[in-house]
């Protein structure tokens, strides 16, 4: 039986955030460099950053109060398993 704390799932999420941040920075750089003086370029940049902040905020809001020290046990019988109502 393998068990690990729930906080460990934050590692792959952190990698996704890192990849997102790198791609986002490059995208904004492209927009600013090549579409510099256009209103649409500014609107797109702010909409993109605003959308990203919204997703992050919603994630934080949905996860507030989560106990990250809980243990996830793989291979152990699940005591409180509720089967889907198919």
């Amino acid at each position, binding site marked *: 039986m393998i068990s690990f704390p*729930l906080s460990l*799932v*934050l590692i*792959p*999420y952190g990698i*996704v*955030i890192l990849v*997102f941040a790198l*791609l*986002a920075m*490059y*995208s904004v750089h*492209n*927009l600013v*460099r*090549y*579409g*510099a*003086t*256009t209103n*649409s*370029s500014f609107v*797109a940049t702010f909409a*993109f950053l605003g*959308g*990203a902040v919204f*997703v*992050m905020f*919603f*994630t934080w809001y*949905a*996860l507030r109060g*989560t*106990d*990250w020290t*809980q243990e*996830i046990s793989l291979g152990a019988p699940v005591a409180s398993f*509720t*089967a*889907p*109502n*198919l």
Partner: protein
Amino acid sequence: MIDLDTLIRKKPDEKIVFQMRSHWITFLGEIVLVLVLGALPVGLFIVFQGVWPSLLVGTISKPILVLMTSAYYLMLWVFFITKFIDYYLDVYLVTSDRVLDVSQQGMFSRTVAELDLARVQDVTSEVKGVLRSLLNFGNVYIQTAGEKENFIFEDVSHPDDIRKRLLELVEADRKRQGEVMAGLGHE
């Protein structure tokens, strides 16, 4: 307007006469795709609420699902901005001296092709199909004197007007070059 200096070595008296990109309707497919992909987790949430509600409130399953959904939306958002950049930074520029085709392919690839107005031989505009006729957009083909492939402005608005303006610019450029040559001949 796009800053010309970031793309080419501008001549002293050269200025952008007009710039254009493909009609916004050509970007609609990407918007619809992103909307459908964005609605997918919402659909799954509704399905799970009906058949397996405990999964959505479990102390372990809920944070994992939230993180997965968050990662999905962030990646979808990057996909969308990449598609937008691909569309938005694909620009055709016409300066007083040349025609530029700035093409963005994905996030990391960019090509800039240029054609001297003096080399333009023939310009053809084409509006084909119901949607293109209704919204007045289509292709403009620029034929050159050389063997190099011709320039195409794809799906631009008002292609007939663009053809006319382009031909006027070619004419003006030829006249200007003729005057320069005549001036050199007198010296």
